[in-house]
């Protein structure tokens, strides 16, 4: 975008990364506070318009993200499968409508019914027992799948 902004950001480089700091500021409420964006702008010697402009671009930094607790996948595969409307209805039994947001593609295209809660992704039949997922502590929830080839393994061949 701007060569000058690249240089100004590069003064602190990766050690104290501007983008990472914006992400950290959004963790409490779902979006960074305006006064925090002002402070960041001063710290990096850039304009407040730059930090505000960056924050407004991202799904998880923009003000509309405040208060969201669960995110439903709105990627092409899940939408094509037609599972997400029912999933949102099920989630409304446990969350208010404005606590439900969207994430674009959680990578569970083969199973659909995908959603994200507390740092974990879920899909397929897991979403049937929502109460169990919501009530258990995050570290107890394990929903993962294994990627493998149906024929000769190339990208997934083990290398140890």
């Amino acid at each position, binding site marked *: 975008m701007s060569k000058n*902004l690249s240089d100004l950001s590069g003064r602190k480089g990766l050690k104290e*990364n501007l*983008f990472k700091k*914006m992400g950290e500021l959004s963790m409490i409420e779902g979006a960074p506070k305006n006064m925090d964006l002002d402070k960041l702008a001063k710290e990096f010697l850039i304009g407040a318009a730059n930090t505000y402009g960056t924050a407004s671009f991202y799904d998880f930094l923009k003000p509309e993200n405040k208060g969201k607790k669960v995110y439903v996948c709105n990627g092409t595969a899940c939408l094509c499968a037609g599972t997400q409307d029912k999933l949102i209805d099920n989630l409304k039994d446990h969350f208010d409508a404005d606590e439900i947001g969207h994430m674009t593609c959680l990578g569970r295209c083969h199973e659909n019914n995908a959603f*994200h809660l507390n740092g974990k992704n879920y899909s397929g039949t897991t979403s049937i027992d929502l109460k169990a997922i919501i009530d258990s502590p995050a570290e107890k929830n394990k929903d993962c799948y294994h990627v493998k080839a149906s024929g000769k393994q190339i990208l997934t061949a083990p290398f140890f």
Partner: protein
Amino acid sequence: MLVAGYVTGASHGVLYIRAEYPEAAVICQEAIDDLRREGLIGEDIDGSGFEFDLKIIQAQGSYICGEETALINSIEGQRPEVRIRPPYPAQRGLFNKPTVVNNVETLATLHFVLENGGSAWKGIGTERSSGTKLVCLDSFFQ
């Protein structure tokens, strides 16, 4: 990435991981911690004088960040808008420094190529599109 850094004289590697894949960030951070514990990243690696470090940057939800120049802008804290090229990232990239950007799909092919050779890789696929390609098939079947 470590080898690429050694060959090109780079000292930083960034893993830009989507917010939608939080488990991937956890797994990658564990791998980075393992490398650090083994003394394979950091300053003066194995007394060689070469320094290299890896950092994970967690994305914040924007599909366009899959484009390499938008990704670079994103890491800098700018709006992730696509840059005009030239100059290309290898000439002027992250913080205006020469930068190599690779997709994880490309890096995943390295093991096969190192073990079986470039000809074996070229032997897969078509003449103009060698190797493998990941595609996602979507359809609405009735």
